[in-house]
């Protein structure tokens, strides 16, 4: 879409602010705004122009459980929603090499530990390789976490040591289950 024509940008910005854009188009538009200062300014302009319409709206205290629920959803590393595993995946990938990230857009790593001794082994591995924070919080949040990987797409020698070790460790002890690949962004 050509956003260079100023009128088109203004029109879309007004449509966006009024809430008339369908959800999918809106998400695309929001990505555009992030990289386009003219569009961002147009959106700001329309938002500020129409914002006085909100001033007569009476304030009302929301019930306390709304905040508790928000805290739960943003505070834990556990998957409260189906999307959460993608966040943990991101944490993994950032910490353990851009090579994997570049090579495996479709990877889904989803850690599961069943029997207690194995959990300790994984925890020890985590400590050596710096996975600590993630494993620790996952353990608190999820009683059973299991390791399964699918389609790494990276040659064995390029996989980081922690992953080779984990795969060796779990090969006989855990069934490797296929997980849904994460959707590439």
């Amino acid at each position, binding site marked *: 879409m050509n956003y260079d024509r100023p009128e088109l940008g203004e*029109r879309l910005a007004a449509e966006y602010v009024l*809430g008339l854009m369908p959800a999918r188009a809106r998400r695309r538009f929001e990505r555009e705004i992030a990289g386009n200062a003219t569009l961002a300014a147009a959106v700001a302009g329309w938002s500020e122009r129409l914002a*006085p319409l909100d001033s007569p709206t009476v304030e009302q205290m929301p019930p306390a459980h709304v905040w508790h629920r928000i805290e739960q959803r943003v505070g834990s590393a556990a998957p409260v929603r189906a999307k959460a595993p993608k966040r943990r995946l991101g944490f993994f990938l950032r910490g353990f090499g851009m090579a994997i990230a570049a090579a495996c857009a479709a990877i889904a790593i989803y850690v599961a530990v069943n029997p207690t001794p194995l959990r300790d082994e994984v925890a020890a591995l985590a400590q050596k390789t710096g996975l600590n924070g993630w494993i620790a919080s996952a353990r608190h949040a999820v009683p059973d976490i299991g390791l399964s990987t699918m389609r790494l797409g990276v040659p064995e020698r390029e996989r980081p040591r922690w992953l080779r070790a984990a795969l060796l460790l779990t090969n006989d002890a855990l069934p490797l289950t296929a997980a849904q690949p994460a959707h590439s962004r």
Partner: protein
Amino acid sequence: MPELTTKLPELLRRTAAGDKPAFGALYHATSAKLFGVALRICGQREIAEEVLQEAFVAVWGRAKDYDPVRGSVMTWLVTIVRHCAIDQLRHQQSRPEGHSAPEELLSSFVAVSRSDTGAELHALQRCLDELDPQPRRAVLLAYLYGLTRDEIAAKLKMPVGTVKSSLWRSLERLQRCLES
């Protein structure tokens, strides 16, 4: 609320850096107004509560995307809440205001806004009054209550195509009026 206005950018900036207490403070400073907005659009408390929750989870995730060039923090928050509320409405089968004529909806807004002493609202009202009645109603129905073009067309008994074309022309007039 000048003190609050200076606080919000800092709270949002710290939220973007992962500061949970700042996020909490941001919520407590703004949630009453934002809940009011959600209620206005959704009409039902439980749904408005869901919307507020969704909106703030989105705020947590998108705080780093906020740029002051995009307007004030409060306006940015209101936009997120309005969009969450509108998304929620699309999933509902019946909307509370589906049973109200546009005049009822809009006259309640006019009544409340008369007691509002803000200069900005008066300036906007003055410019809105210069528009033709149907496009003016269309702007208000969209912004205040989250109606789609089709719903606006049905309520105002206008063809959808007319809503589309007259809406943009009216918004341009509104913009020129406000800039003068």
